[in-house]
């Protein structure tokens, strides 16, 4: 069988039952299917085909990383359940007119012993073409089950007056089960062409398109299944994406933004506590840092006392997560470091890796305990309540506020301009002889500037914004490299001491660690050398003009 001619779907799926009727979607579907068969009957004989290739019931689980890396790369990974070991199937989305249809096959491989319900790192997949395609893309994230569907496929032969099969009607009835409730999805219909009979297949597709209750299928089955669970593909991102408008009163804008950061933070809690992969903690920390910056730079527009109360609490949370993250960074960077060793061999680092892993396990326990603590729950719950109050208090629109209140755009431009001035002043004062601390300080200011830009991104011209943030990012990378190399080198020294104290440090390992420290020192020198060029590009006369224009336009388009 054959290229599929076109996908259709029957409406009358989820949530479309007439009011008051708790419709089993299946009943409705079978009514609609008889309507479809009626539409085809004048032109074709219709004969159910038992045991046709591809008929029967199949269960599929879609897999992706928490931040939808495969989906964003235009790929879909499914696990096809089977009694004796399933298989993994990778497809690319090549839908007509850019819709996310179920796409063409890219790779497949058996996956014996794989349990799709349990998250697993891509690198832990059994070897095969699917793993080869996705391991790099997904790393260091784990593959999680997104949604599981069960599909019953039935095939009907469409025959001509000689009784010859000239096309097939394939009906796929799917259900998705979540939290014990099974929901029927709109049945999908496909006309499959029989070789040498293209006109008949086209005719069948035309009749199908005109049949009552039939519409072209525009979404993939995964999207359909997620929609039944009130979700949609790519529904997580750690970018700020707050819904802020230029005219919004400043307190509302800040509360909206902080609520959005709190959402992201909370979305990552479960993944952190279950220790699914390292990036949950990373994203959680980013949310905490952004929250702290927002409190520091914008908190004065919130009701009095709020910033003072929550600033220290978020510092506690940030500090709590630091030891585990630092060790994660060492562990994640180790393979690349090992590859660059010249004198020592990669195996020499194994005791170091093992030591890091033990420490990490210990630190993680402390972290997980704190994340389950009442203090943490109280922090997030009360913070949310306070922010919602601020947001909703100002929401009912009165005719013209009695006293002139600052708008989001005004707040954004004044605060951003202020931090930008600090960046240009501090950075401009840095010479070749400046102490490392001056670069560390500049890094902090740059981070604040970056966050401010991101908080209010919807107010700016996207093209100009991209250019400014792009140059800033390059500068930040350089400053980050400079400081992180130093910090990590210092940490390696401390870790080496600790390993010696634990008698866990063979000489070869210490030598290899020394080589890594040397590599880090080398990167730091390199970063220092790059600094003035990167700074000039971002904050030189042209760069300053770009930022001025960006901010002015945000105000003028109010």
């Amino acid at each position, binding site marked *: 069988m054959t290229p599929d001619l076109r996908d259709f779907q029957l409406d009358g799926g989820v949530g479309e039952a007439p009011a008051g009727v708790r419709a089993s979607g299946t009943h409705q579907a079978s009514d609609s299917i008889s309507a479809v068969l009626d539409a085809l009957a004048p032109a074709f004989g219709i004969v159910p085909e038992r045991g046709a*290739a591809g008929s029967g019931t199949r269960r599929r689980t879609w897999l992706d990383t928490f931040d939808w890396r495969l989906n964003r790369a235009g790929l879909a990974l499914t696990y096809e359940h089977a009694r004796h070991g399933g298989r993994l199937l990778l497809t690319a989305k090549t839908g007509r007119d850019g819709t996310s249809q179920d796409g063409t096959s890219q790779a497949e491989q058996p996956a014996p012993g794989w349990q799709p319900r349990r998250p697993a790192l891509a690198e832990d997949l059994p070897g095969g073409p699917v793993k080869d395609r996705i391991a790099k893309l997904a790393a260091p994230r784990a593959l999680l089950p997104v949604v599981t569907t069960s599909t019953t496929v039935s095939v009907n*032969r469409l025959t001509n007056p*000689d009784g*010859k*099969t000239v096309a097939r009607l394939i009906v796929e009835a799917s259900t998705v089960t979540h939290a014990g409730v099974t929901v029927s999805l709109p049945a999908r219909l496909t006309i499959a062409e029989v*070789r*040498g*009979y293209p006109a008949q297949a086209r005719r069948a597709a035309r009749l199908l398109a005109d049949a009552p209750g039939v519409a072209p299928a525009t979404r993939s089955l995964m999207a359909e299944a997620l929609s039944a669970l009130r979700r949609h593909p790519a529904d997580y991102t750690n970018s700020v994406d707050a819904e802020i408008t230029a005219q919004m009163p400043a307190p509302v804008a800040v509360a909206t933004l902080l609520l959005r950061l709190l959402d992201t933070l909370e979305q990552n809690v479960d993944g952190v506590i279950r220790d699914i992969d390292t990036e949950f903690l990373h994203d959680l920390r980013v949310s905490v840092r952004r929250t702290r910056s927002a409190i520091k730079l914008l908190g004065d527009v919130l009701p009095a006392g709020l910033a003072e109360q929550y600033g220290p609490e978020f510092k506690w949370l940030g500090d709590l997560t630091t030891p585990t993250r630092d060790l994660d960074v060492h562990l994640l960077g180790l393979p690349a470091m090992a590859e660059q060793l010249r004198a020592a061999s990669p195996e020499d680092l194994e005791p170091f890796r093992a030591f890091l892993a033990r420490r990490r396990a210990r630190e993680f326990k402390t972290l997980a305990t704190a994340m389950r603590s009442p203090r943490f729950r109280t922090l997030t719950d009360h913070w949310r309540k306070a922010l919602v109050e601020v947001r909703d208090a100002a929401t009912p629109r009165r005719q013209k506020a009695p006293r002139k209140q600052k708008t989001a755009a005004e707040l954004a431009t004044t605060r951003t301009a202020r931090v930008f001035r600090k960046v240009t002043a501090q950075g401009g004062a840095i010479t070749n002889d400046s102490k490392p601390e001056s670069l560390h300080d500049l890094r902090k200011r740059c981070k604040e500037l970056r966050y401010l830009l991101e908080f209010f991104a919807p107010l700016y011209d996207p093209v100009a914004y991209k250019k400014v943030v792009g140059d800033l990012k390059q500068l930040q990378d350089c400053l980050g490299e400079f400081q992180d190399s130093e910090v990590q080198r210092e940490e390696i020294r401390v870790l080496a001491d600790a390993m010696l104290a634990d008698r866990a440090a063979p000489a070869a390992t210490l030598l290899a660690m020394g080589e890594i420290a040397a590599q880090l020192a080398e990167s730091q020198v390199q970063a220092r050398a790059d600094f003035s060029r990167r700074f000039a590009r971002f904050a030189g006369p042209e760069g300053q003009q770009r930022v001025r224009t960006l901010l002015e336009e945000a105000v003028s388009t109010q």
Partner: protein
Amino acid sequence: VKIYATYNIKGGVGKTTAAVNLAYLSANDGNRTLLWDLDPQGAASFLFRIKPRVKGGGRALIRGTKTLDAAIKGTDFDDLDLLPADFTYRNMDLLLGGTNTKPTRRIAQLLRPLADEYDHVFLDCPPSISLVSENVMHAADVLLVPIIPTTLSLRTLDQLTEFVAGFNGHRPEVRAFFSMADRRKKLHREIIQDLSSERAMVSPTAIPSLSVIERMSVERAPVTAFAPRTQAARAYRTLWAELTSAEPGPAEVRAIRAPATASSEGLGRLA
């Protein structure tokens, strides 16, 4: 790709039923299979409910203005396609004779582009001695010869073997099997018994003469598909298993080849 051709100079000996059933069994095993109905009567096409018509007729195919690929139709069965007959095939000798180079190799040449697409190709050849049959013999890897258990049929089989043995280069392997065998006839039983044990090229499996095989034209499907448990279907399955597993070794192949000269005259002696 492996090319099988059913051939016999006589008509009505079970060529088409063999081609249709063996092609079905091949596809049923998961082999991508093509059956080319070369007989202008179009019996194989009829049995698969496909109209015996090719756009542009045999002329377009032989001249190459239409590729075989474009004329192929899917049957109702997975992995089994058919290249239909066309009434213009009755003039195929003339068409083949009209091609400039190597008129006896034209069909082999036309099939070459399909080599990657199919695992097995079956050629259902019209009963004749002609340029068409010589083409088929050159194209085929295995020449399947249904024979009725009579002494005369054996003579023609010998002549055919001799003729094929005289080919230069590629020679098809000749495999004969008894068709329309009537177990109630003593002569049939004796000939089947003697011959299949005497000659490696003759299969010990005989396709019986049974009405269920005739019913194929009513059901318009291979007997192996609509009545898979009948004696007839079993016989075809055994024959197919023999063809695919127990290939005769090189020694046996050599034994059945007598030296002769390859020419159309040689084929003429079969008459």
